[in-house]
């Protein structure tokens, strides 16, 4: 077995260890309930833990399968995220063709470009070509009603759900001296530090949070966010062996990704509030939609990718 596979398995087993503990704690709390008593917080917690089991299993398997597995997993995540996003945006029948192109041409092509490592294509394809060409397709149908809102929201959906999400697997295409063959681990690093940072932000926010960052938008507090980011940095240091960054580099990158991710989820909270929905969809039990689950990773991915490429590539 190669060291990369060993390392993936090590991370997977560590995650399973955390999940076993969380499931165990939940079951003990449930056993302590009086017969017939219902605790909604506990039920939510348990459904979430179950969803995390699924997530860890899926991501772990995809990483073990290597490049193809990761591409398929994130292409599917992009599809689900784009579907959630465009369900809530403004559109007219005049946009039917451009939306169909977004789903069935732009999305697959972006992943083909990432899969073949064509970084000069996948970094400009959506921000330049889709940005300019899809509005033409909509304009050809001659309906000007709310035109700018329609095309702008479609482009936002593509940037978030396809461009940003595809930068997670794009991490595998960066050439880093002395790191060849281990690129897939950087994905695990990004997802682990951002998601665990979020979880601990939530935990500390509940415990010691006082000062709301954006009252009326999200329950996030400065105390929770600072604790979450510090924890993400410590976790980054702990698993720095998965990265080419070294201990301090890994801490800095984890802190950066976690900070961007947390403020990113504020952006998504604002969009959801604007559209009057609580969750993006219902596809992941206990968590809402794919965008709810991935919002911070989505925001962190392109910046993490760019900084890695700039300083280490």
């Amino acid at each position, binding site marked *: 077995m190669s060291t990369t596979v060993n390392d993936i398995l090590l991370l997977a087993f560590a995650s399973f260890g955390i999940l076993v503990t969380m499931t165990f704690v939940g079951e003990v709390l449930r056993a302590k309930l009086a017969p017939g008593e219902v605790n909604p917080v506990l039920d939510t917690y348990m459904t979430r833990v179950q969803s995390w089991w699924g997530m860890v299993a899926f991501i772990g398997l995809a990483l073990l399968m290597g490049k193809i597995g990761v591409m398929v997993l994130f292409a599917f995540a992009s*599809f689900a995220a784009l*579907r959630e996003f*465009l*369900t809530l*945006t403004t559109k007219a029948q005049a946009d*039917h063709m451009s939306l*169909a192109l977004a*789903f069935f041409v732009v999305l697959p092509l972006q992943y083909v470009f990432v899969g073949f490592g064509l970084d000069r294509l996948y970094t400009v394809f959506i921000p330049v070509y889709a940005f300019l060409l899809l509005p033409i397709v909509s304009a050809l149908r001659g309906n000007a009603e709310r035109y700018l809102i329609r095309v702008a929201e479609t482009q936002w959906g593509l940037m978030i759900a396809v461009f940003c999400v595809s930068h997670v697997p794009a991490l595998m295409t960066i050439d880093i001296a002395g790191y060849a063959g281990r690129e897939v681990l950087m994905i695990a690093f990004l997802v682990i530090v951002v998601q665990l940072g979020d979880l601990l932000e939530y935990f500390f926010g509940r415990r010691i949070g006082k000062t709301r960052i954006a009252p009326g938008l999200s329950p996030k507090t400065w105390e929770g966010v600072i604790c979450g980011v510090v924890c993400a940095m410590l976790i980054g240091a702990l698993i720095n062996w998965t990265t080419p960054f070294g201990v301090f580099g890994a801490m800095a990158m984890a802190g950066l990704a976690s900070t961007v991710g947390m403020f990113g989820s504020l952006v998504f909270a604002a969009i959801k509030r604007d559209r009057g929905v609580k969750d993006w*969809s219902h596809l992941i039990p206990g968590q809402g939609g794919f965008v709810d689950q991935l919002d911070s990773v989505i925001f962190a991915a392109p910046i993490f990718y760019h900084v890695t490429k700039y300083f280490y590539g």
Partner: protein
Amino acid sequence: MKFLRQFAARIVGQSIRIFARAITAVRADWQGIEPVPKQRVYFANHTSNGDMPMIWACLPPAMRRTVRPVAAADYWLKNKIRAFVGPEVFNCVLVDRRPEVKDKPMDKIIAALDEGSSLIIFPEGNRNMTEDPLLPFKAGLYNMGVARPDVDLVPTWVANLNTIMPKGEVIPLPLICTVTFGAPIHVQDGESKDDFLRRASDALVALAPNVPS
């Protein structure tokens, strides 16, 4: 041969269900009633030919087996494929809307109710191509409610299908479709036809989610 046709109908039914789920992640939102196998008439808005398969696909299996969509014979008997899918996969109650035929639609509908089936009907009669949320309802829903007062009449809103598959487009868009089931209504004593139909229409519109389209 009959056995083979039934088997084929099940395969086609499952494929339609899986396709609907994969493309639109169709979900049932039971707001006013529970998903239990009780005799009901689901009355729904009609914007697309996909409406009926969506409602059908999101019902739990036990309810899907006893539900019969009421559909136009001229549409479902147009060619051999439709004549197989309509009556055998969806188990449609086919009604002939032409005034000159002797076979009155309401007789077939009441007969289906008396066999214990639940029904899916589209009381607007035609696909709604206007900007209004609903067209005026036809009298059928009222007549059913009067003839069989014990049956629950359940408002059923299908969201988003006019964007997923608008008339005249070929490629369906994979957007999320939600089917919302509201609280059942019944014809009240002495309620006039127009009052009841207005109440039914209001109950249905009230289920529409507030999302810009």
